[in-house]
């Protein structure tokens, strides 16, 4: 019975020109977005790999000079693109791509790609994720709003039920029909994504991305199921197909366009972001705290004199300027950790509120999870910034240690390429899928809850289906 109903449902859709048109549109859009995402990813990744290689070469090719000059010359860290960013570019356009790793200073990541684009991008980018999160639910609404309401209007519902079809079978059959129709669109779209992914990486890369990609697919599927269930439930409850359509379109609009903005606003209102000038001023004040530096240097002097059991700092067998430079770094690092940490914490608190707002709309948890799994959310950005900063600190430590070890007072000390080569290459690994999910467990929980409640609602609504 269930199968017959599902087949009838599907057949009806396939015969409907609107369905065919919509299905083709959705698949074509996702093909286009994957193609564009793939192209963008390969271009940018190539440029960044090339630049990272060049900055390394420049570092190694430095002539003999004082290690501190080398530290000032520094290196650049370029943000690598995650492969799955071709599915969801997330915040990538809105965070900087490069930071200068120099002595004394943690620089911000600068050059946000969004600033190099036209204002039209603020309408939203057509990524595959956008297609799955915004466009596909609309497709679901349009193919399923009339499942029950339409039959009721045509009077066929009375006939069906009089045949002795149970409401449960009816629900299962209809859901199956909608599900297969959805699969006709989703499966080709997903395959396109897999092909695009396979094109960009070797086997090892693909294997690394697999858990993230699998979770991503699961997240989208849960979302589609939730949406389909809500549509079927509303269709069973609504008095007419017109009402069902209006309710579902309203829900779609609020879900995909209103809540992201409203939630981001509320989050920023609860946890305000300071302005750049305010931030810079506070950080500069702490950085130029000379008293604090004096205290630290005195303490280091005392420690060293005690360690080497001498009466004067000049008698210490290592060069104090290296120690003093490093002490300056340590002081700076504390200030940077405090100030940048505060900004990132503010953002993360905002995003936490944003995630909690997922109670109102299923789109928020999906959006968060999608970005997280694609490796393009703030948490991943922060992790990369942290990696780059730790690398900068390593460079400083190595340079300053070399000065302390080898520089002789009163002479101009220079080090050569052997020292530059001792600095390891900058290597950043994207954390695994589990790491990303752990930081988004609220979203995952909310999404599963949405899905469960939606299915329960649909089931319940069909159980109480009325004929008129």
């Amino acid at each position, binding site marked *: 019975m269930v199968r017959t109903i599902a087949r009838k449902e599907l057949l009806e859709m396939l015969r409907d020109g609107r369905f065919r048109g919509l299905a083709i549109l959705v698949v074509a859009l996702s093909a286009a977005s994957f193609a564009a995402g793939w192209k963008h990813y390969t271009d940018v990744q190539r440029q960044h790999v090339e630049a990272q290689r060049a900055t390394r070469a420049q570092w190694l090719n430095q002539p003999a000079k004082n290690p501190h000059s080398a530290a000032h010359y520094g290196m650049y860290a370029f943000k690598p693109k995650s492969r799955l960013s071709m599915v969801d570019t997330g915040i990538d356009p809105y965070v900087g*791509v490069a930071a200068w790793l120099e002595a004394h200073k943690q620089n911000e990541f600068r050059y946000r790609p969004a600033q190099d684009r*036209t204002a039209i991008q603020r309408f939203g980018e*057509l990524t595959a994720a956008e297609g799955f999160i915004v466009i596909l639910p609309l497709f679901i609404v349009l193919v399923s709003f009339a499942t029950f309401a339409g039959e009721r209007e045509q009077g066929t519902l009375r006939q069906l039920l009089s045949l002795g079809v149970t409401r449960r079978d009816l629900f299962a059959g209809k859901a199956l029909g909608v599900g297969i129709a959805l699969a006709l669109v989703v499966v080709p779209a997903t395959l396109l994504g897999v092909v695009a992914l396979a094109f960009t990486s070797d086997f090892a890369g693909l294997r690394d991305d697999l858990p993230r990609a699998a979770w991503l697919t699961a997240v989208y599927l849960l979302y589609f199921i939730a949406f389909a269930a809500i549509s079927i439930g509303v269709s069973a409850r609504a008095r007419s*197909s017109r009402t069902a359509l209006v309710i579902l379109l309203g829900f779609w609009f609020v879900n995909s366009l209103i809540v992201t903005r409203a939630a981001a606003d509320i989050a920023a209102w609860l946890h305000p972001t300071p302005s750049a000038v305010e931030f810079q001023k506070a950080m500069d004040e702490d950085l130029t705290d000379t008293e604090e530096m004096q205290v630290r240097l005195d303490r280091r002097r005392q420690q060293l004199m005690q360690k080497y059991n001498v009466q004067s700092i000049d008698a210490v067998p290592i060069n104090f300027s290296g120690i003093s430079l490093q002490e300056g770094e340590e002081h700076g690092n504390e200030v940077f950790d405090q100030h940048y940490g505060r*900004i990132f914490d503010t*953002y993360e608190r905002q995003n936490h509120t944003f995630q909690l707002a997922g109670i109102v709309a299923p789109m928020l948890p999906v959006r968060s999870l999608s970005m997280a799994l694609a490796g393009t959310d703030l948490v991943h950005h922060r992790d990369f910034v942290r990696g780059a900063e730790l690398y900068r600190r390593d460079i400083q430590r190595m340079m300053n240690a070399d000065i302390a070890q080898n520089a002789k007072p009163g002479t101009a000390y220079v080090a050569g390429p052997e020292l530059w080569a001792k600095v390891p290459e900058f290597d950043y690994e994207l954390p695994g899928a589990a790491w990303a999910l752990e930081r988004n467990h609220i979203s995952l929980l909310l999404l599963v809850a949405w899905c469960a409640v939606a299915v329960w609602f649909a089931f319940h609504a069909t159980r109480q289906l009325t004929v008129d």
Partner: protein
Amino acid sequence: MLVSMVRHEWRSLVGEAALWIVVALFTIALGYGALTGVRWVQFQRNAIADTQQEEAERFRRHEGEIARINRENATVSAFSDPRNPDAVSRSLGTRYAVLPPTPLAPVAVGQSDLLRSYFRVTTDASEIVLAATELENPHRLLAGRFDLAFVLVYLYPLLIIGMTYNVLSAEKEQGTLVLALSQPVSLRTFVLAKILTRVIIFLALVILLTLVALAMGGVDLGAPDVLSHLILWADAVALYGLFWFGMAALVATLGKSSASNAMMLVGVWIACVVLIPSLLSMAATSLYPMPSRVEMIQAMRVASDEANEEGSRLLARYYEDHPELASDDTQQAMNNFNMVRVAVTTEVDRRVQPVLRRYTEQLEAQQQIVAYARFLSPAILMQDILNDVAGTGTWRHREFLRQVEAYHQRWRNYFVPLISQKRLLVDYSGLPQFAFEEEDLGIVGRRVTISLAGLAIPTTVIAAMAFLSLRRFPVTQ
């Protein structure tokens, strides 16, 4: 006849719950949107005030230090000497170039959350000066703001559709259409009256509510140039609304059921507001892909490495180009470390020009595509107009960047002679200052008028089509 029909339609609409739901939604959305805009402008004003305060405090501190040095005849290191033109030009005496929000800025947040509105200008390369960014949660930049522009571009047409999708079909489905038309009234007058009533209600509602919300938010509606901008804004609101009313009327004349009408109109809405803009954005970035800025960074680094190596040779060449700066004492002129830096920076600027030009050209090309293709979607036109009226769009910011670059040049030109002659500054009162000069009202007006025409022409065509199509409207089947 028309007047009495409008009056009748008005009475029947007032009795409907739907109208009051729309009014309530609109009031809430517009109020909230206005609040977002007002709060954002307040944030920007505070940031600008902070820059001015920081600058003033710094100037006071350094001028006090100059007085102390002169009084005590003290010696200070060149790096922190507030009289040293090199140190002053690069950090101690730098000033902010500020783009103040316009009085109507709360109308649209536009690009102002992405593009920074103040820069601390130094003698560094202008790319470095202009690379500064405002702090903002990138998730919020991605989400966009719930501002008045969002309400007008996205929600306003939906509410129009909600009120208009069944103007004819409902009457037909209820069987009242035949009755009404049995009176001495033509179908055209009948439809016109229905649409006109809604147009009047909507326009009055949107314009009045927005003005009240802005006035309550502290916007001075009487400030100079505000009225002219408001007129452009109101034109845009009216034309954009009329486009959607026209579309609803056209769909209504096809004689389909209410549900079909709703689906068709929502389809047009999604095409205009979601699909066309994002496809267009994709087309622009795919046809003219912007190379990542990392290429520029590398180019600048290579140029500066090479220039630094040439160092004094560049300075010699620099003096050849600027003989007025060379002092008689060649030996001393060539030993001026800070002048070597000036020569090197100038050379780096020269060398990276071609690379920078690629970015500007690519962006220009993207802009060009969008400039032509924006006529495909009234939503893009509307957003453009709103940004322009609010002064938060691309154009005004570009003008700002142009002026900042000119100021940056002025700043350098002021200091180079001082550096080359190793003159010391006595106070900071003569340092060049930046003041943004607003674009000419005529230029803004012309830009907006073209976009307005882009709204008016399709609206007229659609209305004419609806008018003609009514002839074939199947009243009785």
